[in-house]
């Protein structure tokens, strides 16, 4: 949570468990085989924070920087994202007004600004998801409770 991991080890599987309103953003360079996964919590970094990884906008940037340092070519990056669900069905006085949707929006914004396209997204809805990025194979999967793990597709909730 609020963390990012980068790996070039084909044995590794990068996992983000139980993404509710949080957003899991995975990136992979098929040539250098560098992979990274970000588990972002909030949409935008307001002031300064000791943990930029917890925000979608700064997190995406630091993830890319990390991947480049690991040998990736940013122009070749394949990007997936999953999560951003609305975990609280109407609860009135809760402060977290659909953070999930705001996270999804923030991701769209920063990816567009960086000229990156999404290869797959499974976002929204009301259920938690776990994502796995298989570094060796360069693919990302999603799983919800009661569901089989499946490759991430392009779908909206």
């Amino acid at each position: 949570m609020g963390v990012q991991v980068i790996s070039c080890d084909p044995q590794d599987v990068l996992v983000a468990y139980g993404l509710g309103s949080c957003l899991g953003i995975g990136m992979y360079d098929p040539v250098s085989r560098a992979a990274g996964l970000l588990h972002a919590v909030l949409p935008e970094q307001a002031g300064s924070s000791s943990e930029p990884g917890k925000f979608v906008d700064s997190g995406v940037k630091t993830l890319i920087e990390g991947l480049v340092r690991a040998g990736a070519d940013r122009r070749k990056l394949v990007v997936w994202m999953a999560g951003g669900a609305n975990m609280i069905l109407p609860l009135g006085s809760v402060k977290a007004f659909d953070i999930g949707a705001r996270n999804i929006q923030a991701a769209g914004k920063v990816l567009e600004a960086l000229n990156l396209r999404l290869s797959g997204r499974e976002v929204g809805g009301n259920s938690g998801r776990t994502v796995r990025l298989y570094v060796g194979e360069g693919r990302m999967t999603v799983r919800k409770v009661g569901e089989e793990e499946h490759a991430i597709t392009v779908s909206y909730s």
Partner: protein
Amino acid sequence: MESLPTKNNEKTVAYLAAIADAGIHNAARGFSGMLGQELSVVSQEMKLLPFREIASIVNGLEEEVVGIYVRSEGDLASQFMLVIQLQTAMELADLLMDQPIGTCRELRSLERSALAEVGNLTSSFFMNSVSNLTGISLRPTPPAVVVDMAGAIIDIIVTATGSLGDWVMMLKAKFALGERAVHADFWVLPDARTLELIMSGV
């Protein structure tokens, strides 16, 4: 920037711990009340941690659990989450509805209402205890019942506190019902400014 909410001196910590202790035991009484059986407090701890470590207090972020979420607003602003493993929650629903354990196979609206009420009582008893000790008023919100992966349930808490700084105080208690081992975790996360308020009474 991080805002560590407590001045970590012994007196303050002891005061908070005493309030928390009274609150937890009263919460157990509230929970028991619905069951008509004595619920015990198996363990309790109070931690100050960076929000990111909240996830570390749960074993099994992918595990399907039931979370009953209540907030209190006003001067005593806090979040409460009663967390029960799905299987246990179904057994608890059986107990609450006076039917043989194993009857409940799915949490439908009736079972969810019963569980919501348990969460409600547990939090309310906790709040009443704190209110009596500190004189601070409280205003609870209606409970929400969420059934999903533990990690997703934690997101509810984290996103509500994330904007208040990088640190949270978490009170964590485990309740158990006799040999039946109905285990439930009870988390209390006061808002930063509420902590300040309570500590001003030290």
